């Protein structure tokens, strides 16, 4: 299973997928001391993003991602990559600053094709996301 991405930055990485139906903000949704989504009612509430490949349809709000990504990377609780359907400049500025792989735009949409727990690879140079193994 392969998904093409439109724009990408960073090193090629692989890891466990976390697929969200809801958008993301490191400021609104994430506990930046544990790396866990803590916003009440968020569809991923209670999920740790540490070392994950995170699929989010959209980016929400926030200028703070610029420092927040660097902060969680410093604390060793950062995801390995963000794969966005649609993102905003701050997410990109933050990911580049922190050295976290980031992509935007996907074809086809990963809904139903990639599930949380699948092992995936993100290749920014090839602008490709690939499922290596299905969730056991």
């Amino acid at each position, binding site marked *: 299973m392969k998904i093409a991405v439109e724009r990408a930055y960073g090193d090629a990485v692989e890891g466990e997928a976390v697929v969200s139906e809801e958008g993301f903000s490191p400021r609104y949704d994430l506990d930046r001391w544990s790396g866990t989504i803590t916003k009440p009612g968020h569809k991923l509430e209670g999920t740790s993003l540490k070392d994950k490949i995170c699929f989010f349809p959209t980016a929400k709000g926030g200028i703070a991602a610029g420092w927040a990504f*660097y902060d969680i990377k410093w604390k060793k609780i950062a995801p390995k990559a963000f794969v966005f359907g649609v993102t905003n400049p*701050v997410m990109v500025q933050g990911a580049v600053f922190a050295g976290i792989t980031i992509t935007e735009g996907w074809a086809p949409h990963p809904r139903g094709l990639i599930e949380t727990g699948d092992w995936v690879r993100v290749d920014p140079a090839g602008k490709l996301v690939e499922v290596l193994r299905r969730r056991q």
Partner: protein
Amino acid sequence: MELQPEERAILGGERGEAARRALEYQVKVGEFWGAKRFVPVTNAHMMGDIEVMGDGGLQWLKDTAALGARCAVGTTTNARCFDFAHCEELGQDAGEAAKERELIACLRRMDVVTTDTCINYQTVYQPHLGEHVAWGDTGTVIYANSVFGARSNFESGPAALAAAITGRTPEYGFHLDAHRRGSFTVELQATLDDLADWGALGKLVGEPHQSYFSVPVFHGYRRSPAADELKHLGAALASYGSMGMFHFVGVTPEAPSLDAALGGRSPAERIVITDADIERAYAGYRLGDGDARLVVFSGPQQSLFEMKQLAALFDGRKVKAGSRCFATTNGAVLAQARALGYAGTLEAAGVTLLEGVCFYILQNLSPMRVANGWTNLVSNSAKIVNIIGAHRFNTILRRTRDCVDIACTGVLK
């Protein structure tokens, strides 16, 4: 990206290592977005406080200052996480406060003007039509693009500081005409007489259209909106919709007409917002356990006119015993509010005035919530009721007068 000789010289280290690193970083961001070149900026506004930066960010800042980083253009700071006069009373961490002081000193060494305000557009710098700036937070950017017709993307702290140091930013997003055209229309049949109504409008329009490049065009409103109304609208659109620009026909400079705002395109969608829609937005907030002991006027900081209105509403009343009410603003507004008596009236009523901060970024906010047993947070700011979720408040949007009543009676309706 096509680089000018001066930019190649910066990458060659002619303006020092800090500028070289800053431009190198900007090139990577620009290339992601397909920017063809840099545009010069006249002003930068950056978020930088210990709560969001953490120890890693502070170390990076110290290293950057030690490399001799200096701002090439006027640069101001956004609201921060400590009002040092109140940090002990709020139970904030003394060690983190010391780091915040270190961080501020570091920024000043780089020639950053530490205004500590998220309403720089109301109190510090008003860019003109077409002026390129590098601003963050989101509320400042959407105001600059929409109300002034200036040009900025959301610039995170490191990105705004990089722009401040190099004096330029990659040309993508809202620096380009192509992204500034309206994409859908919003006819305003609603009355919108309270600031919270404007925030609710931003929520209703922003939430279902979460896209940075989605540009709503408001039209059909019965009167000319005031600056504070557009401020709450913009802050909410940016917060709920991640939007960086809107048009308001007959009000904002790039929208003399509906056609002009749309740039000749057909709108992807036509929405109508009525009073019933606004009421439904208020009705959508769960009251949780009914706790009404925390009322906040913040996010964005209060303008002088908001302080005046609050003073009038609180005059002769008292915040209910056991409840807390906070209003945050910047140093300039607070000084004038003191001189004009508004601050005195609010403090006499028991309102805590915090300077240079925004409530949602206060250091130690989650432990503060737990220590005080707060479960609900009531505010007239649609932005703050959205943004503060990670601290596990149940949030409730109410009109300004209702917020004041809730603060003084302890009764949540």
